[in-house]
């Protein structure tokens, strides 16, 4: 059998360099992909929406009486913390999705295409911002149904939402890093939980720092999640704002500057 054959020049000469526009377009396409999956997966939407509801019901009614004496005043204290808790935990999804994309070979396909090398990561992160926004909206909305009241201004509340989203976007690069380094999505969940649990619960999201033993206070006071929760409390129910907001932003920036390039580097090098 002889091959059909074709003249050697029978294909378009490939472009030498990728234009930056291509990179932006690729990122948009992959953001679209991420959102499309959200639209078609009922389980994911349900999980995203019900998790904050579950946190609120459990923590408010289980801890409320013991921590603050009554449920309502605890809700005012705890809701900004629940907001942080829900969003931070939803960033784990970023790493799990990436890990799954690697395991199923979807990333191999992306890497064999003439597309921007950072687009698959950036697209995933952009898509996830929507997920975090859903988590924030549900926490706030359901909290208000239970009786939470914003005691500042709508503008301050908007700033609170924006801040927690920014923080989550920085944090999700850490999650992405885990997703790119461990074996599978299950490992992401295990390792992520081992880091996320002490980080979130070892803060003032649920209880006041003063009630903790001294050594624990030291940890809590240095924990970036504490700064973020303080900032959220300041912006939603009142109290000092400037210092915790600046600290949260600095932490977010630091995490982004460290983890994003590292994740991109590992993604490019991996296999």
């Amino acid at each position, binding site marked *: 059998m002889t091959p059909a054959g074709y003249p050697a020049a029978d294909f378009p000469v*490939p472009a030498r360099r990728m234009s930056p526009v291509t990179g932006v377009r690729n990122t948009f396409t992959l953001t*679209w992909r991420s959102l499309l999956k959200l639209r*078609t997966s009922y389980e994911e939407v349900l999980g995203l929406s019900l998790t904050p509801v579950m946190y609120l019901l459990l923590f408010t009614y289980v801890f409320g009486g013991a921590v603050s004496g009554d449920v309502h005043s605890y809700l005012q204290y705890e809701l900004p913390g629940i907001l942080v808790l829900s969003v931070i935990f939803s960033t784990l999804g970023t790493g799990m999705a990436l890990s799954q994309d690697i395991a*199923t070979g979807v990333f*191999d396909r992306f890497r*064999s*295409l*003439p597309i921007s090398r950072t687009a698959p990561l950036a697209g995933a992160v952009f898509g996830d911002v929507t997920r975090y926004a859903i988590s924030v909206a549900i926490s706030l909305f359901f909290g208000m149904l239970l009786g939470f009241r914003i005691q500042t201004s709508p503008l301050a509340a908007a700033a609170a939402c924006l801040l927690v989203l920014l923080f989550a976007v920085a944090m999700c690069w850490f999650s992405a890093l885990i997703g790119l380094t461990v074996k599978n999505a299950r490992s992401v969940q295990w390792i992520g939980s081992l880091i996320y649990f002490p980080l979130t619960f070892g803060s003032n999201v649920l209880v006041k720092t003063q009630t903790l033993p001294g050594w624990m206070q030291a940890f809590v006071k240095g924990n970036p999640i504490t700064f973020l929760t303080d900032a959220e409390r300041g912006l939603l129910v009142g109290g000092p704002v400037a210092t915790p907001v600046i600290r949260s932003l600095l932490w977010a920036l630091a995490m982004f500057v460290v983890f994003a390039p590292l994740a991109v580097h590992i993604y490019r090098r991996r296999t």
Partner: protein
Amino acid sequence: MVATTNAIEAFGLVKRFGKTQALAGVDLTARAGAVLGILGPNGAGKTTAVRILATLLRPDGGEAKICGYDVSEDAYQVRQLIGLTGQFASVDDGLSGTNNLVMIARLLGMSRADSKSRAAELLDRFELTDAAGRPASTYSGGMRRRLDLAASLVGRPRILFLDEPTTGLDVRSRNEVWSIIRGLTADGVTVLLTTQYLEEADQLAHDITVIDRGKVIATGTPDQLKTQAGSKVLQVTPADASRLAEVADLLAERSGLTPSANPDSGLVSARVTDGALLPLVVRELDDKGIELAEFSLRKPSLDEVFLQLTGDKS
């Protein structure tokens, strides 16, 4: 453009993973427009070779060129020329068939409308139109493989890498994939196909490179490989099965080798190198009054060649 008649050229590819030497100096050449079959057992290094050629993996040594472009230096150009279908169907389970293809088309820079029509065209070609709107997670193994193939063809690649495209498929799905691959060659696409199935290489490949333990152990057309193995196989089936032993004795005497007689199938086969033996055997069988049900001389199957090439060294 560099004028070249070889679409794929690789020299001395070396790759190790820790202590495992996956490739120990592999040369590969695929003629433009031909199907190159890379044949080898599990763990021979086939997938590693494909991953290097498809720019997913950097070789530790050696070099590879796709249409004259170096896979390490000019990876971006190479990616514009190739399509890849992995060993494990790499479609996005969460997306529908249509959206999987539209996504690739959009990534390749096609407009929204062009992407949709290209997706529809490919889904139609691969008989997936009925399942176009369903998530890929609901597809059968064969459907996924076809979608995966379609995804690798969205950008009309000149070179297509198929890493074990039929592993795990039932016979019907396998035949479908085979006919798709034949159709592609007719379009002038160069195909590099890895397989552990000799029949597949025999059916589809113009050229075959056999690799084992990271090394090339044989190259050639399927016919050359069969001839390279030297001897032909003479098969005799006596009409009367009880005379099997007589036939076996006669063949042993004439060929000087021990023939294998299978009482179940009533078949005696022997390796012969001398074609002149045949009339002699026929005459003697006739003299003895042994009536024949079957008498044939054939080239060894690729299976036999393959076992001969890889088996002896273990």
